Every structure is written in C-alpha cells, then in structure tokens.
C-alpha cells in the first residue's frame, strides 16, 4: 500500500466526509430555497425563480414577489445562515479550546454580555451601532471568561457553571439598558435574550458579513492548534504551541464574532452546543473538518429554525431562539447526564 492510501485508510471518517460535503451543500441550498417561498405570504417557486433571474439581469419579475423575496426574505435567509454558521463555528472552537463538549458561547455568557453592548450601541447608532457595541462587549466578556479559565483551568465544569452564572447576571443587565431606552430605537428585551432575525436588512447583512468573515478566517486558521490542545495544554506547548497566546487570540475572535451576531440577531441559544455535537460523528474530531462542517450545519440549523419561527403561529412570529432552545435544551441535558466526569 502506498503511503497516501495507508494514511487515508487509517482515518475512519474519510468515507463519511466524501458524501457529507456535497450533501450539505445541497441541503443548504434546498433549505434556503424553501425559506424564500414560505412565510406569511406563500410565494410559489414559479414566482421566486424569476426574481433570482431578474437579479442577474435575465428577464422580469413581478414587483410584489420581488419586494418580498429579494427585499425581505433573501437578506433574512442569508443573515440567518451567517449567524448560524458563526455560532456553530464558535461553539466548535470553544469546545476545542476548553476541551469540553458543553462549551457554548451563549451558555458561557459571551452572548448575553455582547447584548448589553449591542443594546447601548443601538441607542447610539441603529443596527451598525448595535453590531459595533456587540463586538466590543463580546470581546470584553471573553476577557472576563479568560480570567475564569485561568483560575479554574483544572476543572472545566466550573468554567461552564461560572459562565452560566455570568450569563444570567449579564442577561439581567440587558433588561436595565432596554427598559430605560426609547422603544422606537432599541429592540425589545425578547429580541436580545431570545434572538430574532426579524430585523434582517441588506444594510445589517453588509456590516455583519465583513466582521464575521474576518473572525471566521482567523478562527479557521487556528484549527491545528485546537487539535494539539486536545492532547493537553502541556503537550500542546511541548509540540510548539504558544498556548497562552492561542487562548487569548481565540477568545478575542470568538467574542467579536458572537458580538456581531448578537448585534443583528440577539442571543440565539444552543446552536453552538448542538451543531458540533451532531457534526463530530460524521466528519470526525479533527478541527480542520469539524469547524467547516459546524459552519454549514449551524447555517442550515438557524435558517430552518427561523422558517419554523415564522410558520408555527403565522402570521405571528416567535423568536428564533425559542425554536433552537426547544431542540437544543434536551440535547444539553442528555450530554450532561451522559458524562459524569470531565477530564481537564
């Protein structure tokens, strides 16, 4: 057997990855397409397709279909995918960094912390202000978490529990900001704490995509370091990883990325927890595969959850976080019960 063939044969997930990626792309496109057609007003596929063609200069579409499909649903689908992809990615990164499958940006308090900054930012400068405020507050909360990691690094369970306490406290502070603010400028408390894509616009998408692309590239570049950290912090250092630097930079990237998602969509729970957990058995634990798979999986999950959020009580919309929590909560409990001990 050649070297290359032998190396491939020793990877139990290489076969599954071969079908996962094409399938994931097809599913992502399919879910996006269905989301463009369904809603308070159903627009048949025969009307959606002309809108898409019209946008690349082919033919004409009805102005009503164009207003709904391109003006409202398209930015919403894209933003949903972007938010989900970011939360899936950050979840997988944090689980690698903290060496614990229970890590999740919202459970650890990064999301609620970012929401305070985003709500203040919204007062000052609309959606762009909210994104900027979310990024700043997300990074600050990450630094607070960094201190906790340093103090409790022997016991990941305590980091998670500290994060939960931190998150509860910060969520309460979001209330102090929001209830004192002008309701016509700052979205209501349920937007921030339960998450919603109802504010999606091309303008919000354009700002968020720049920040999220930079953060995602940075986090993806660290995939190998996360692999090495799984061997243990000392082992990673012995193999040449500057573990302090990697931890700090990674947490900054996670804080900024989560902060930007909170600025546009509030705190969408459980995506970061659930998606890497579902992807791991398919693509394997190596981060160069897991991070990308968690992005596409997270994107699909949030777009699908948002579709349900729009349809379940139509024409009334429910927050997308309620849908993700209904699915994510039981999985979290199951994970907790399955693992009674944690290794540092």
């Amino acid at each position, binding site marked *: 057997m050649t070297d290359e063939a032998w190396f491939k044969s020793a990877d139990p997930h290489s076969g599954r990855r071969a079908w996962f990626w094409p399938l994931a792309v097809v599913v992502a496109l399919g879910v996006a397409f269905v989301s463009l057609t369904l809603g308070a007003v159903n627009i048949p596929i025969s009307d959606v397709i002309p809108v898409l063609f019209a946008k690349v200069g082919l033919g004409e579409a009805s102005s009503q279909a164009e207003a709904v499909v391109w003006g409202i649903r398209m930015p919403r689908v894209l933003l949903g995918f972007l938010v989900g992809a970011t939360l899936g990615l950050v979840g997988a990164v944090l689980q690698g960094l903290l060496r614990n499958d229970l890590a999740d940006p919202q459970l650890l308090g990064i999301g609620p912390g970012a929401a305070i900054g985003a709500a203040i930012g919204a007062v000052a400068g609309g959606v762009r202000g909210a994104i900027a405020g979310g990024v700043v507050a997300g990074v600050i909360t990450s630094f607070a978490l960094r201190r906790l990691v340093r103090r409790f690094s022997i016991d990941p369970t305590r980091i998670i529990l500290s994060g939960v306490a931190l998150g509860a406290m910060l969520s309460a502070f979001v209330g102090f900001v929001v209830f004192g603010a002008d309701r016509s400028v700052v979205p209501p408390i349920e937007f921030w704490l339960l998450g919603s894509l109802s504010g999606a616009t091309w303008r919000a998408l354009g700002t968020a995509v720049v920040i999220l692309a930079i953060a995602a590239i940075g986090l993806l570049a660290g995939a190998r370091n996360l692999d090495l950290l799984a061997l243990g912090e000392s082992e990673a250092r012995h193999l*040449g*990883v500057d573990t302090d630097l990697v931890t700090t930079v990674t947490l900054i990237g996670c804080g900024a990325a989560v902060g930007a998602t909170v600025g546009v969509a509030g705190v969408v729970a459980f995506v970061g927890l659930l998606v890497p957990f579902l992807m791991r058995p398919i693509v394997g634990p190596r981060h160069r595969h897991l991070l990308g798979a968690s992005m596409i999986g997270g994107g699909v999950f949030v777009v699908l959850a948002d579709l349900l959020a729009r349809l379940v009580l139509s024409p009334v919309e429910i927050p997308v976080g309620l849908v993700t929590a209904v699915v994510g909560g039981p999985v979290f409990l199951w994970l907790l019960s399955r693992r009674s001990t944690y290794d540092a």
Partner: protein
Amino acid sequence: MPDPILMAESITYRVGDATLVDRIDLVGHRGEVIAIIGPNGAGKSTLLRVLAGDLLPDAGSLSVDGIDTRSAGPLELAQVRSVMRSGGASDIPFTALAVVEMGRHPHRTDVDASLSSDRSAIRSAMERTDTLHLAGRVFATLSGGEKTRVVMARVFAQAAPLVLLDEPTIALDVAHQERVLREMRQLAAHEACVIAVLHDLNAAAFHADRVVLMAEGTVRAEGSPVEVLRAELLSDVYNQAMTVVEHPTRGCPLVLITDADR
C-alpha cells in the same frame, strides 16, 4: 567529543522560600541515556520541567542544541526537545495516527514541502513502536500500554535531539515496561540524548548509560550505574535498607530491598 545537546549550569528553581532545584549542573550528549533517580520530593520532576522549558529557572543557564531556552519561542523549543510526561490527557478523541502525526507539528512550517518526509517519519515512528496496527483506532479506547506506545511514537516522530521522559513506565506491567525502556534506548541510538526520570532503580541500572541520584534538590551522586547504585549510598538517600548484587544474566547492578535489622 562532539558538542553536547544539553548544557545546564547551576540551575536553581525556587517556589517561595523552598529551593526545589539547587545549583544543578547537567550535560547530555547524543546517543546517551541519562536516568534521574531519587526519593519522592527530591526535585526530579521539577528539574525535568525546567529542562523542558515549562518552568523558568531562577538562576543558572540552560541551552539545548545551542539554543538558550530562556529566550526561545515554543516552536523553536519544540524543534530541539520533546517531552513525554505521565498522566497526560487520556480521553483524546483522535486516532492513534492523528496523535503521532501531531508530533510533526514543529516541522510543519512549510506544509507542502515537508509532507512526504513527514509521512515517512510518522510511519517509521509507528513501525519502531509496533503501533502501525493501531493507526485507525481512537486513542481514548486504547489500553494503557498501547497509549504509552502511541505517545512514544509521537515523541519519535518529533525527532528532537533532546528527549525528556517523566516516569514513562508508570502504570505498565513488567513486559510493557521493558518494551518502553528498550524503545528509549532506540531513541538514543537515533542520535538523541534521552533523559528519563525513573522510579525503578533496576530499570536505571540496565537501561541507562549514566545515573543521576538526586536528593533534596541537589545531585548526591552522578556516574555509571555501577558507580552510583551502591548499597550504602542508596540506603542513606532513600532511608530504606538496600543491598546491591550483580544481576545474574545482565551483569549490571541489581538493587534489592532488605530489612534494617537483618
């Protein structure tokens, strides 16, 4: 004599008022296996961590393959020394092959150029530790002995001229202990200087070229196994009566525990 790989001069490491490592000199050459022995609390593991660059010495100078460990970055250090410690993470979700592959990380600054040399280094490391058949198995599901051999293969793959082993045979049965110790010799035969903290005095007696006996942070004796493993010296340092005879087949010293009132 060629230049030494390890040059430690007057290394001192303190925590608060306690001096855990007290002005220790140590020189190591390629091809050499050095065993560090001594009772609990003698400072063996602390010394190893200082040599590994995990702890910065409070005084003294330390260079590995000509690099001053005080100013070297983690990657630079990883190219000249590898470490195997007991009690590393055991629930690693990666395959054995992936774990061994990570040993090549310090050499992967240019991924494409080094890929084929990486592959041959990985395969030969697994061949030598007899872990090829474990390649596709998940590390967390391996037995204790298999895990130790896979980690040993990772250390082989790292191909550093200085190899530091902290009690590599802990929790292994006698056959696996022997196997790991022979692999340690192999590492030295491949142009490395191996320094191992060992609890088993008879392992040090047969497998080491040189033995360093530590007590209370200082070196009590240093030399060949025959020179260091002497009954009265060991009995004094360990505060336990011992006698030393010649090993019936190996010809090296054989340390036996005896009773004080014999």
